[in-house]
């Protein structure tokens, strides 16, 4: 949902959600490149299924996306009843997830040739993940 901001340029976006562990609220406010409020500040993003499996089609995007969630902190992820320890390396601060969701795969959705470039854009996202130190089999198909 962090990529919503690229479709509403120069507009404040507010996301209200709740932690799947404790049910308490999480608030994000952002504007183009800037995420100017994250409450609580300890909020992290997490993906409870191998990202690489979504890229290869081993799991559906529906299943993968529904397992990408925000939590009030890393401790809340690990306390969550559905937490899979294999997914530990996907726990990242919101700023890292925002970086991962800032490439052309997300920014260029309204470009008239988007679909012909979408796989190239996906490759660029993998490079972005590598720059964040996320280059293992959890992220990149082997």
């Amino acid at each position: 949902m962090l990529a919503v901001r690229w479709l509403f340029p120069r507009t404040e976006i507010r996301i209200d959600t709740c932690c799947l562990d404790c049910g308490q609220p999480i608030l994000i406010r952002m504007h183009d490149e800037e995420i100017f409020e994250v409450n609580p500040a300890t909020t992290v993003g997490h993906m409870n299924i191998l990202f690489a499996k979504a890229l290869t089609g081993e799991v559906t995007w529906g299943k993968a996306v529904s397992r990408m969630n925000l939590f009030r902190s890393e401790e809340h992820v690990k306390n969550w009843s559905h937490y899979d320890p294999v997914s530990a390396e996907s726990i990242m601060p919101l700023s890292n997830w925002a970086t991962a969701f800032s490439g052309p795969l997300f920014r260029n959705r309204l470009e008239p040739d988007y679909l012909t470039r979408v796989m190239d854009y996906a490759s660029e996202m993998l490079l972005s993940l590598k720059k964040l130190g996320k280059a293992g089999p959890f992220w990149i198909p082997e």
Partner: protein
Amino acid sequence: MRETTLVQRAYTAVLEHFVKTGRAPHYTELAATLGLRPEEAREAQRKAAEASIACWFVKDTDYVESWAPFSNVPTHYLVTINGDPKWYG
């Protein structure tokens, strides 16, 4: 119209509909937008989802469930823009 162009137009039209209204169009609405017959729009919409990433339909239907980055069903990610809370991520 070349098929790749039509599929791209369908993809963009669904996304623009989400941006404007907070929901996906039904393929009959998409047909009106693109100047197509309903069945042509249904097929174009389905091919657009297949050609993209993280766009899919409610199982066994032609109803859009997700058109990334938007969800067409309520989720626990409520998106408010200019004070208007009508999108879901």
